[in-house]
């Protein structure tokens, strides 16, 4: 369990993290979602004691990170895939990390196998691809078999197989009752992986709720309905208070009703439907609405509002 209370980090006049308070519960995959520059990485660095908060407090399993007798057994962190000396081999890096906690070499071999690094473990990290670097970072995080895992952008640079692997691994770890805290700026990935979401923008918590609630909270999620009796259906839906627009004859876009509700209403009125589709990734809409005013780096208007399946129009370096 990770708890932050009024956690704040200022760099000069810039406030990277602004009084964040949240709790990350065990047994769930908690997604930490926000645009670049929202303060996700800074928060994660403060959790593991690398950066000290300007104000507020953060504890892991009830104590400050630095107060744990054996921190790697409590918390495994993938903070930065490149937090490894490039001149050292992956195995030697893990051996050195293991030595700090008296962890046996056998465990090093285990995490090497587990993360699919066996063939490259004796090569120097400098030659690693981004994906291999991520796997090594995850291997280090798993080394101490910790109760809490903090993964900053773990799927960054992974191939589809690796993405799937991380998804299954995080779910598996959470199912064992561990605390899994995962940051990403990709809502599509979060929709598939996370149970709970903490959405942040400009250093503040914008939402802290189960994924389904975050999606439900979004306004303007639309249902596309095609019917040969579209006019009758439109009349029916409008009378019930739903928002209806019609882009072309026979096609309606309905807001304020779920696909199920519309289907049921149509069936009750004996109106035939030819299509009934929930439009767009709803989490994405929810996310974009939540963070619309909070993104630090707006790109010059490249069709933001209904970015269905497209990357959000957010640019700029993280951190």
């Amino acid at each position: 369990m990770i708890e932050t209370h009024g956690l704040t980090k200022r760099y000069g006049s810039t406030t990277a993290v602004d009084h964040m308070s949240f709790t990350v519960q065990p047994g769930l995959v908690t997604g930490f979602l926000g645009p670049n520059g929202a303060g996700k990485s800074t928060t994660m660095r403060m959790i593991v004691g690398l950066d000290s908060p300007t104000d507020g407090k953060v504890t892991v399993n009830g104590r400050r990170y630095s107060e744990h007798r054996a921190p790697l057994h409590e918390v495994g962190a993938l903070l930065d895939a490149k937090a490894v000396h490039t001149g050292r081999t992956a195995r030697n890096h893990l051996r050195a990390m293991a030595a700090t906690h008296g962890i046996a070499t056998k465990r090093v071999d285990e995490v090497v196998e587990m993360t699919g690094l066996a063939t490259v473990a004796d090569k120097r990290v400098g030659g690693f691809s981004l994906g291999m670097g991520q796997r090594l970072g995850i291997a280090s995080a798993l080394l101490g078999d910790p109760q809490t895992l903090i993964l900053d952008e773990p799927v960054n640079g992974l191939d589809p197989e690796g993405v799937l692997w991380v998804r299954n691994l995080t779910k598996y770890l959470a199912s064992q009752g561990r605390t899994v805290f995962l940051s990403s700026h990709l809502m599509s990935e979060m929709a598939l992986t996370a149970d709970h979401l903490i959405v942040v923008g400009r250093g503040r918590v914008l939402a802290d709720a189960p994924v389904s609630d975050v999606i439900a909270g979004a306004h303007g999620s639309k249902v596309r309905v095609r019917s040969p009796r579209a006019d009758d259906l439109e009349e029916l839906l409008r009378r019930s208070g739903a928002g209806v627009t019609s882009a072309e004859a026979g096609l309606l876009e309905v807001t304020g009703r779920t696909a199920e509700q519309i289907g049921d209403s149509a069936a009750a009125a004996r109106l035939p439907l030819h299509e009934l589709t929930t439009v767009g990734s709803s989490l994405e809409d929810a996310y974009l609405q939540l963070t619309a005013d909070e993104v630090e780096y707006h790109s010059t208007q490249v069709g933001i509002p209904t970015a269905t399946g497209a990357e959000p129009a957010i640019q700029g370096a993280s951190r």
Partner: protein
Amino acid sequence: MSAITATPTFTRSIPSNIGRQTWFARSVRAEWIKFWTVRSTVWTLVATVVVMVGISVLAAWGSTVEAVDPGSSMNTAQLLSAGYQVAQLVVAVLGVLTITGEYSTGMIRSTFAAVPRRVNVLAAKVLVLSAVVLAVSVVSMALSYVATLPWQDELGAKLDLTDPETLRMTVGLPLYLMAIALFAFALGALLRHSAAALTAVIAMLLVVENVLMIIPLRAIELISPFLPSTAGRRVLFDTEMLTATDAVTAGTGLAPWVGFGVLMVWVLALGAVAAVLLRRRDA
């Protein structure tokens, strides 16, 4: 990329001897592994040996060629430390890279996440670096002794360790090189940047001290003898050399071990500042 096969297996009790060893012992073990698993450290150590032995041999050979005073005997200890000026630069590079290599690669974040008591990390690195530099210096001296044997008779050189001055010079060399490595390490820990720290150390050892020594201003003449290398290297000099050095400089002539003590004060002072900042700064 190979297929990821295994469903991860976790054993809640992974083999670990957390309770049995102290934090410091485990940190030292980790730093020892780190030290030897980077190529640059191995190369700098090889370079130290090559430089020390090579320059000793050149000095021995050169002395026989232009032997000025056939009757006089030469102290072998001086022969063995002939390469110290170059060797100190090599161990300084080693000292700097031991810490800045972690900052430049981001490794320091893994290190501090594993050992949040950062001063432990610093102390463990100091111990490993000191031990290795001492050992390599002793090995270099032994090899230099053997390598210069063919010329020693001709030079009338002998290594008499019962002679206090010879003993001081012999013991002084490994200690001096260790102190310089630590001085460089402390600067590296302060500056956290390889290029900046290397520049600072080398400028200090090669330029600043030598330039200041020749500036005939009273204030500088007073400070100059207390600069790290100027003070510390006096343990390597025989009486003749000490007298000659004091003759050209107007400042205080520190006793050899006092000079070395001054160098160690520099090391400790810089190290203390580095340790305080290490705890305070974000990694």
